[in-house]
């Protein structure tokens, strides 16, 4: 079973086309293992991306070095998954 310990989901807000292009570049870097929940497309739209634990620091460093604003939507994905699993087990028991 694949676990998601330490995976974070970031919401990235771009200001202009240049920043969108930077994110599209990031998207093409397969070794980072990014899972875009909303892909970079236009400056007005936010970008949501799930980042594996091993890539969190490098992605944040990249965003900060480019001055691209972001916030953390999900701090640790596995915590949310565990909660879901627990809810399902309780429902099944009921």
């Amino acid at each position, binding site marked *: 079973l694949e676990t998601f310990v330490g995976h974070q989901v970031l919401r990235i807000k771009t200001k202009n086309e240049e920043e969108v292009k930077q994110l599209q570049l990031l998207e093409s870097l397969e070794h980072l293992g990014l899972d875009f929940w909303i892909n970079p497309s236009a400056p007005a739209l936010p970008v949501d991306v799930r980042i594996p634990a091993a890539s969190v620091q490098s992605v944040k460093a990249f965003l900060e070095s480019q001055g691209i604003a972001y916030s953390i939507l999900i701090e640790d994905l596995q915590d*949310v998954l565990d909660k879901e699993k627990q809810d399902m087990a309780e429902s099944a028991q009921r």
Partner: protein
Amino acid sequence: QRSSSSFDFGTYHTLDDINEELDHLASEYSFVEKIQIGESYEQRPLYALKFSTGGRNRPAIWLDAGIHSREWVTQASALWIANKIASDYGTDDSITSLLDKMDLFLLPVANPDGFVYTHTSNRMWRKTRSKIPGSVCVGVDPNRNWDAGFGGPGASNSPCSESYHGPSANSEVEVKSVVDFIKSHGNFKAFLTLHSYSQLLMYPYGYKCTRPDDYAELESLGRAAASSIRSLYGTTFQVGTICNTIYQASGGSIDWAYDNGIKYSFAFELRDTGRYGFLLPASQIIPAAQETWLGLKRIMEHVRDKSY
């Protein structure tokens, strides 16, 4: 004698439990039938519910959910909606007049292999589970695999990508089964698909950024449906073409449906806005389904009244 169901629509279920509930709905209501429209890559049956009160090859509405397997609230909502339609026929004027004139086909788990995989191996799995020759990566994004601008912008040619379009249009048997079914039926008037994430209601096009011929009608109907959705819990849906609302994406189902003559083609993106991702708490399943149903009903009423 009617059997009683202990199915809890307010929680998430496995594929086996969902299929059992489809059997139950079909046995409970004489106008509901469980039909198989094909088989997935891993040979799981693709079951749809057919709601039909009679007539032969009546004009029909298509509704599917769960083509992206991790979007669990869509499969769950589809079941609640199926039960709502079945139980309200005969008492609710709108549903009764709809089903007296049209048939409805509902596919609650459009990607069963992916759905089982989200339960057993990887909760975040989105694609099919087909093996790609020459690649270590598995699966195709089934909403980039339709014959509508296939392989164009907004789809990846890398098998390892979450939005991989596949080796060719309709390469995924889950997609081809729906395509074959809709073509052989020949009388679908609406194609509605449920996705989840970020609260959008979209119509064609996604593979190109131009307006469809029926832009004015689709925009106005989309806004009316979004207003119905908002009326229940205040949830705001953004309305527009796929390209303008989210991003250019080729090979999508509603573009295929529209280009094949099904005018009323809409994709819903249900809750959530991001705080829970695809892990929307079970307590929000029924509210999501209820508000979605109001939007769907608004569109279905329009389809019923504006025959073409």
